[in-house]
């Protein structure tokens, strides 16, 4: 059924030493076609030197995100018809991260910040003990669940202009992870979490611009999670217990 038989696709290419250069390809159009398919077609048929990244192809691994017509997206789950501008489309590497080559960004800063935000569990029990019973509908648990399905795709990170302006800023995904852990009844060190998000580039740098929430492909809400952290730190400041 496609009304068109070709798409005009511009790919921004380059690397750390070469500024990004646009290159345009004509790609055959198909009914069921994702942006990742378009990029793959180019590499497999037109220009074998094109570099990009993917793994799961079903929106679970978060390795295929790119800028598509100026919007960060998971490309394996983005149908071409959703982004096509007339008959054309522009694809580039994720914003706010160093480019390794062409469409593959270096995600290390993103994960370094995940760790810097204390984004890991602080155990209260060991493998020799039983699993803690947890009320699944408790308010705290609901708050923790809200952000737990993050696939660390970095879409929010590249959507956020605070990240763009402030290289220290931990960014929405890492802070959302911190908030999830802060609400986890099983976590032993919530103070460490609040300390980690209160420093240079912590949650207080966020301006609630909400691009994270607007573009998260999993419909998560880092904006509210970060607001939660701000509230918790302010409360702690006034001596309030959580």
């Amino acid at each position, binding site marked *: 059924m496609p009304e068109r038989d070709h798409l005009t696709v511009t790919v921004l290419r380059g690397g750390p030493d070469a500024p990004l250069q646009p290159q345009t390809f004509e790609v055959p159009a198909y009914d069921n076609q994702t942006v990742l398919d378009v990029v793959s077609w180019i590499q497999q048929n037109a220009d074998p030197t094109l570099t990009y990244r993917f793994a799961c192809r079903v929106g679970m691994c978060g390795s295929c995100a790119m800028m598509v017509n100026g919007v960060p997206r998971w490309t394996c789950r983005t149908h071409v018809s959703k982004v096509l501008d007339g008959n054309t489309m522009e694809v580039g590497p994720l914003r706010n991260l160093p480019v390794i080559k062409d469409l593959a960004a270096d995600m290390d800063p993103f994960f370094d910040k995940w760790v810097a935000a204390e984004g890991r569990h602080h155990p209260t029990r060991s493998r020799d003990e039983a699993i803690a019973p947890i009320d699944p509908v408790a308010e705290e648990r609901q708050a923790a669940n809200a952000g737990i399905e993050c696939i660390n795709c970095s879409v929010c990170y590249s959507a956020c*202009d*605070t990240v763009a*302006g*402030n290289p220290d800023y931990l960014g929405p995904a890492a802070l959302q992870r911190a908030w999830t852990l802060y609400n986890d009844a099983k976590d032993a060190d919530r103070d460490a979490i609040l300390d980690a998000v*209160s*420093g*240079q*580039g*912590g949650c*207080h*740098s966020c301006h609630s611009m909400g691009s994270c929430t607007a573009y998260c492909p999993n419909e998560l809400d880092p904006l509210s999670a970060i607001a939660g952290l*701000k509230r918790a*730190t*302010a409360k702690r*400041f006034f001596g309030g217990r959580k």
Partner: protein
Amino acid sequence: MSEFHLYMAQRLSALVMAPFVIVHIGVMIYAIQGGLSAAEILGRTQGSAFWFAFYGLFVVAVSIHAAIGLRTILGEWAGLRGGARDAVSAVIGLGLLALGAQAVWAVTA
């Protein structure tokens, strides 16, 4: 001053300003009817301890608030970092405070 303390200072100064802003806008709407004149303004404010305290606190809060706000913008939009940024914002804050104090003195003394 940690990043967090700056944040708290900015939020708290904003909250301090909130009632001032409402009164200030209200007074302006009331006062501007039929045009403004120096005598009118000064007649209202001069010698009043209330307005002195009112505008005095307002100026202190706004200097803190605006200096911190500009510090953020200097960082994000002008790429200023570290000590340079802190110094520039401190100068801005003190400058605002000085000019503001002078103005408050002028209209209320």
